[in-house]
């Protein structure tokens, strides 16, 4: 391995891959039973964080940034004047193994620009994974990008070696895609996704009968949507996400606030703000549907098409549904406890355990660690102090915003000061 040349390629191909926000390295169980290298456990590990605050858990690179497509939002697009490079299969294997041995990473995330054809590219991605598993005895995490238009046979092989497969739909609507990625076909994204979904279903049913069935993409599939490049509202974005969760059993949908990289007038200008707060609100909404029992329609709907930027989506829902409150912390079921603003799932678990012993009051709840500033307006407990208040939603919102100097706002939403 020529160090200087590899260094240069790594810079180019890591730089080009950084807009892919998928970083998860969890959800796969690959035990190191063969005295080989590495394992993948339920909980992934973030080994570092970039200065923009995003997790570094996988060696995330492109195999090449040569591309036959010309998608306006993509740095790797054909018409963009950037330095091009390509890794050899063995180079990616060596980098992965050496980084992994030093405990820098949990594994490899390998994507690629499309050179020659979809299959030609996919074949090389698969070759890297295959080499890692079969020749290097590597049990760490591997995430491969499904190349739109790749054949069923290659997708089947990919899933045998990778923990996760993903195909980025990037643009949430068909019309947006037509505008920004005219060479791409919506169906080309769907086909590999469909194939992987079916393989996973088949694997699960075979596994029940034959224990030794080889694993197929044990960490499932994910996808990514760019936010703020093509004018969709949050309702469209979250509905699209819901569609993929339901119909393709996706494990994750990622939302990527568009970072302007082009002077193309179909897109936001270079220098315009990255919609980070909006992106954060989308992730919060996503969590509400995946872990808090919310339906997408409760968070966004025809009458409420965009998420509030100044308050989180759970608080927003609560303020629009005041008839559900106050909730009695000492009696409510898990579902309703989880709907109280300022109470997370960990606090819900603690409340359920602690209230077996005695009725909980404000003091107990504060110690357990609920966000009092938000929660106080929405619950009753074994204290009288706040029970007789009869405030309107607007009043409550004003009170909360006035008192929200919480770490949450400043750290997670650095742009919040724009609205102050």
């Amino acid at each position, binding site marked *: 391995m020529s160090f200087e040349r590899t260094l240069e390629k790594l810079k180019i191909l890591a730089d080009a891959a950084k807009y892919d926000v998928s970083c998860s390295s969890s959800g796969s169980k690959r035990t190191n039973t063969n005295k080989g290298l590495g*394992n993948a456990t339920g909980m992934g590990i973030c080994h570092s964080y970039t200065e923009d605050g995003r997790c*570094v858990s996988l*060696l995330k690179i492109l195999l090449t940034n040569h591309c036959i497509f010309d998608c306006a939002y993509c740095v790797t697009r054909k018409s963009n004047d950037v330095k091009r490079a390509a890794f050899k299969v063995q180079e990616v294997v060596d980098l992965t193994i050496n980084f992994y041995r*030093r405990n820098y990473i949990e594994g490899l995330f390998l994507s690629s620009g499309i050179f020659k054809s979809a299959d030609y590219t996919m074949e090389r991605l698969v070759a890297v994974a295959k080499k890692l598993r079969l020749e290097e005895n590597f049990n760490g995490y591997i995430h491969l990008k499904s190349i739109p238009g790749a054949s069923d046979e290659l997708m089947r092989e990919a899933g045998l070696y990778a923990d996760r497969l993903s195909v980025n739909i990037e643009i949430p609507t068909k019309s947006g895609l037509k505008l920004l990625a005219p060479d791409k076909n919506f169906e080309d994204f769907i086909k590999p996704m469909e194939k992987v979904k079916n393989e996973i279903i088949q694997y699960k049913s075979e596994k029940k009968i034959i224990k030794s069935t080889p694993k197929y993409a044990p960490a499932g599939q994910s996808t990514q949507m760019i936010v703020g490049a093509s004018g969709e509202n949050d309702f469209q974005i979250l509905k699209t996400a819901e569609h993929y969760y339901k119909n393709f059993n996706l494990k994750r949908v990622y939302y990527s606030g568009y970072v302007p990289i082009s002077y193309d007038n179909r897109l936001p200008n270079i220098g315009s703000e990255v919609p980070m707060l909006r992106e954060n609100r989308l992730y919060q909404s996503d969590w509400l549907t995946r872990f808090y029992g919310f339906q997408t329609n409760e968070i966004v709907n025809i009458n409420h098409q965009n998420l509030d930027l100044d308050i989180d989506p759970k608080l927003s829902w609560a303020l629009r549904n005041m008839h559900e409150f106050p909730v009695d912390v000492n009696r409510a079921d898990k579902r309703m406890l989880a709907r109280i603003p300022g109470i997370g799932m960990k606090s819900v678990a603690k409340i359920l355990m602690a209230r077996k*012993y005695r009725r909980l009051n404000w003091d107990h709840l504060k110690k357990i660690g609920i966000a009092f500033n938000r929660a106080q307006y929405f619950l009753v407990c074994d204290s009288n102090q706040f029970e007789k208040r009869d405030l309107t939603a607007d009043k409550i919102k004003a009170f909360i915003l006035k008192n929200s100097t919480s770490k949450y706002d400043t750290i997670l939403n650095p742009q919040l000061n724009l609205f102050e």
Partner: protein
Amino acid sequence: MQNKTLIYDGTFEGFLSCVFYVFEYKLTQVTIQNEYVLQNALFSENENIVTDKTKSDRVWQGLKQRASRISSTKIYYAFLSEQPNVENILLDYIQYIFKNKEKVDTDFTHSSVLKTSQIAKNVSREKHRMEAFVRFRLTKDSIYFANIEPDFNVLPLISKHFKSRYADQKWVIYDIKRNYGLYYDLQTLDFINMDFPDNFDFSKTSTDFFANEEFDFQKLWKDYFDSTNIKERKNMKLHIRHVPKRYWKYLSEKQPNL
């Protein structure tokens, strides 16, 4: 009744032996102290407690019957925090557990139950961070070496993780704050003590000790780390929250002159 201070050897078994002693003599006014951090209290009678495996096992088994597995694990985790006075929070918790017929280990309205849980959570976070921030460097003897300085004594907690992950390479993780380490020689995992040369700089990679290619891989990693940053999204506050500065000196991606 007079105050009594029980002094133990700093081990978990030693601490549990103290707990046994407290129950055996039905002591009420009692403080447990590690012999290494001993501060003499006025008007207190000191008693040295000998670590007794049989007694400590009895306490531990009893605890596991009266509390959930998670709760007993939390007690062990909290103990490893080495926080001043943590022994007495744990004693209070354990007494509360044994005093009641019903299970009380999830009564988070009880202060020592809640405190134990919170301290255990801090230790658990440090454990997870050590699994993340250990940076192995390949030595001339083909051993992957890492040094750490965790706030809490988490080395016993991370051994399993590294053993199952790095089964095909020799490695050492050394806690330079507590002067002991873990050594895996491809067969077994042992606790070890090491002497380092006077000129050994724990934050640098010198070719005197480390393999020639080691520097190259650190450079590749650091450059990778820098290239993956999106400067339009820079957020140092969030960055530092995730990677607190006290860890930086041993992270190769954070070395300025690489």
